[in-house]
């Protein structure tokens, strides 16, 4: 089973839930798909055994073959190619690597070369298989790195995916084809607004989901009311405590210091299994 942990709003506790759920289960993989700002490794402290660069194909012009016809510019949907005075100019940061320009060039003057945009690191800690991706500084496109992380999903294990915040392409790439989504929120107007956006996303993707309310003792009751009205199950509540905030701040896990939480995360997992088997 593949469970993704998402939120809409940042900083609501996705990583906390993903890490502590992973630490409570056996035969588990944790895949951090927040490749812009991966944090799970801070808490798991895995020993990395492998590091694989992630490339995207970027076209390069062979000036000897190019006659400046401009066909490549015509077919490029991303304005990543300009042609001036029969000279072709390529803007790699706009290129999505679709391969169209190379295919349609009548003179065979474009060749794709690999450009590194990030890295996937694979490691292990106490039986947890750990994988994360890191987008290189200054690179725009997270989805290819996320796809590279997800290639490591093993169907023989429970895979837990730490999803980036937001509602756009990186989030979709991360939660697509997963079996269940946990949406972590906080009971504030910001948390609720972003939760409702995230709910729209998972509904659009038709993935079963439930909500965890983090820092449930700070804030108001509107998130509860929203969930009741929308018929969304609240899977777990984590009250605000300075102790938890402090454990988090130094990069430790809740289940290690507050063992009663291991029970809670196990119950959460059982509940998810029940929902997905319906």
């Amino acid at each position: 089973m593949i469970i993704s942990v998402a939120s809409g709003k940042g900083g609501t506790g996705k990583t906390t839930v993903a890490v502590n759920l992973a630490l409570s289960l056996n035969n588990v993989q944790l895949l951090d798909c927040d490749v812009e700002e991966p944090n799970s490794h801070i808490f798991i402290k895995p020993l990395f055994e492998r590091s694989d660069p992630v490339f995207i194909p970027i076209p390069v012009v062979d000036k000897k073959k190019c006659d400046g016809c401009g066909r490549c510019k015509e077919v490029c949907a991303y304005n990543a190619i300009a042609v001036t005075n029969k000279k072709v100019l390529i803007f790699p940061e706009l290129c999505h690597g679709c391969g169209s320009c190379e295919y349609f060039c009548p003179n065979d003057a474009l060749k794709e070369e690999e450009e590194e945009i990030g890295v996937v690191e694979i490691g292990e800690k106490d039986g947890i298989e750990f994988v994360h991706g890191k987008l290189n500084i200054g690179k725009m496109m997270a989805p290819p790195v996320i796809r590279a992380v997800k290639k490591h999903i093993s169907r023989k294990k429970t895979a837990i995916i730490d999803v980036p915040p937001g509602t756009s392409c990186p989030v979709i790439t991360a939660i697509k084809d997963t079996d269940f989504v946990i949406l972590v929120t906080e009971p504030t107007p910001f948390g609720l607004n972003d939760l409702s956006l995230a709910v729209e996303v998972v509904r659009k993707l038709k993935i079963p989901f439930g909500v965890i309310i983090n820092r449930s003792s700070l804030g108001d009751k509107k998130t509860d009311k929203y969930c009741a009205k929308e018929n969304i199950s609240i899977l777990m509540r984590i009250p605000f405590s300075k102790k938890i905030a402090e454990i988090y701040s130094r990069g430790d896990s809740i289940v290690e210091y507050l063992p009663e939480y291991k029970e809670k995360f196990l119950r959460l997992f059982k509940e998810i299994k029940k929902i997905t088997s319906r």
Partner: protein
Amino acid sequence: MKEIVIISGKGGTGKTVIAGAFAALVKNKVIADCDVDAADLHLLLDPKIEESHIFKSGFTAFTNKKYCNGCGTCSTVCRFDAVKEDFSIDPISCEGCAFCSLACPEDAIEMKLNISGKWFISQTRLGPLVHAKLGIAEENSGKLVSLVRKKAKEIAEDKKYKWVIIDGSPGIGCPVIASITGVDCAVVVIEPTLSGLHDAERVIDVTRHFNIPVKVIINKYDLNYDITKKIENWSEGRNLQILGKIVFSKEVVKSVIEGKTIIEYSSNKVTRSLSDIWGQLEKELAG
């Protein structure tokens, strides 16, 4: 006119609360919410929307079954796994490159323009606001961010305002790069957690990669004094100016629930730090 963007790398460190505070503290400014994925600043500003526009960007492929002969060229050329077994297109996976449409020998695939969001110009009690809502599961958030910034700048120029205050988004990728390009100062909000520091480090590397002036604020600094100290030392080592430190306060959560900026809601240590921070920033960017 000067543009200031508030970013953090990590989400939930207090960007929007600080942007809201600046909105209340600063006169003659336009406010731009560039977290187009999950915009929240409007919840504090109660905007009266004056203009609402549709944002069209990018294309999605559609197969016309009538003309499709099932040759499969589309699925051979598509690199985004968007062509399903029956040769219809999964709109969520489609990146709109049009490769399939151009390569189809039967001309059976049409590219349709996406409506990928909306953007708004509003009046608020604290001044004009430009914000946006990216459609669910849509792409091109970077383009929408650039559009929001462009409109905010136009209003500021038109009214001869001195400042554009930009609320940024978490992360370091496309929307963040679009929100920092060419600004006069990026303010990075760091919380004293190892994750907060790790993420701030990466986003500061991005600002430096693009040669953007950058300064930092340590928010909720009393949640972990050791890490706050670490952030201070680290900032010094990297020649980063700390504009100020703000204590953790439940009053902040209450102000958000009341739909007010913290400056309007109360007067305490938090608001004093924020006005000192703005004073400092104003002094350094003026001139």
